[in-house]
């Protein structure tokens, strides 16, 4: 009888240890659930998601407008050609296959920027809403990445000198605020690189098309 009670007690104790152990492990796990983020992180996330959703709504409205135009045009004729031509212009601009111009900012950079710093700067501009970016005369595409070459920093195989210009098209105010905010990318870079970075808003920034072929060589359109 006593042996039976002991077994039950041991089972209960083992169960309790197991439950507590799992709880402990879970509490040490990374807080990836939204509910476990700090208020500050949540605010940043809300700002980013709100901006993203606004863009998605705009994109959706435009695509529906395009559909409406196609329906009005029918499946042939000049109108349908115009709609497709406009679509090609838009997609080419989006991916860097066509030259673009518009308002934006210009960053004059002079000094020893390493590959990580330049990639971080480009990433920050993208996150701030830059629609198109160029480093000197090199249009930045999805594939473009700064690497340390044998003699100098390179993007798309082209050497970048110590003094170069980074241009981005987007809201000048929005881009400037994001780049220059306290604790932002320029503040961070000033701590780790020896370079001067001067930022100017610009009424008109012209960016060339990429000179790289972006067509995949081994990738192909997925079917189905």
């Amino acid at each position, binding site marked *: 009888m006593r042996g039976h009670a002991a077994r039950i007690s041991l089972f209960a104790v083992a169960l309790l240890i197991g439950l507590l152990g799992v709880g402990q492990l879970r509490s040490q796990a990374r807080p990836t659930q939204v509910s476990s983020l700090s208020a500050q992180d949540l605010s940043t996330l809300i700002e980013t998601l709100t901006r993203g959703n606004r863009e998605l709504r705009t994109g959706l409205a435009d695509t529906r407008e395009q*559909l409406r135009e196609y329906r009005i045009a029918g499946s042939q004729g000049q109108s349908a050609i115009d709609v497709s031509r406009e679509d090609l212009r838009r997609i080419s601009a*989006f991916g860097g296959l066509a030259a673009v111009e518009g308002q934006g900012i210009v960053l004059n950079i002079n000094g020893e920027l390493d590959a990580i710093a330049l*990639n971080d700067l480009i990433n920050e501009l993208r996150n701030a809403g830059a629609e198109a970016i160029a480093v000197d005369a090199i249009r930045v595409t999805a594939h473009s990445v700064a690497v340390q070459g044998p003699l100098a920093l390179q993007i798309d195989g082209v050497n970048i000198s110590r003094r170069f210009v980074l241009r981005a098209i987007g809201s000048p105010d929005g881009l400037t605020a994001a780049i220059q905010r306290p604790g932002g990318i320029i503040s961070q870079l000033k701590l780790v690189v020896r370079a001067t970075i001067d930022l100017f808003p610009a009424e008109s920034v012209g960016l060339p098309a990429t000179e790289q072929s972006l067509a995949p060589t081994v990738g*192909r359109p997925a079917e189905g």
Partner: protein
Amino acid sequence: MTGRRPRAAPLVRPQWAVSIALALTVIGFVGYAQWNGSPDRSQFATSVQQVLARQVTDLEKEQEGLRAQIVEADTEVHQIQAASTTSSSALAELNRQLGVARLAVGLTDLSGPGVVIEIADSNRTVPDGDNPGNYIVLVDDVRDIVAALWASGAEGIAINGERLVATSSIYGVGESILVNTAFLSPRFRIEAIGPDGLLDRFTANPAFVGRVARRIDVFGLEFATAPADNLRLPAFVGNTRFRWAVPVEAVP
């Protein structure tokens, strides 16, 4: 008179009682650690945070809905364009060019050989006094992996199903990561399509070797790579229409 004191009965310590005592001690320690390890729990539960977290969840749901509607509308556009290729040679040529451009910039599902890379937080116990942030995947780790893949000749990359395009950013919010405004959680699965030898070039690339490879080694971040014969990367889903940038060249 010397009375003999009755001999005390020997203390009975059955083995199970010792086991339970030990187990209770363990429970005590674990319970304390559990309690002590969650000092921010009350902070998490503040009403402000709950409201903000609810807002984030609502925005994520809204985003999911918008993306589904975009996919639907895009599919309709593609179907119209595909149907029109038989009706006019000029239109057919234009729509062929459209297909090529979409493929090049990441707006079409892409399939082909490549590599799969997975990275996740370390399973090691954080030593006392060490920074727990060293043992989790940071946004820089993901960026370095992506940079190394592009530099190694990748033709297309997706992170947890988020296709990277010219406007994509990989952004850290606290310890979380946003890609194309989608909120991603570890483990991070990075798929890349590219020519033969992509994996070898990637593991030797300075962007990988410089920081993230060292962190994997020193802090035990979970990391695995595998070549793949036939990957399928989803097309980018999002806004592809510019507000500020205007194409300069006209399409002939």
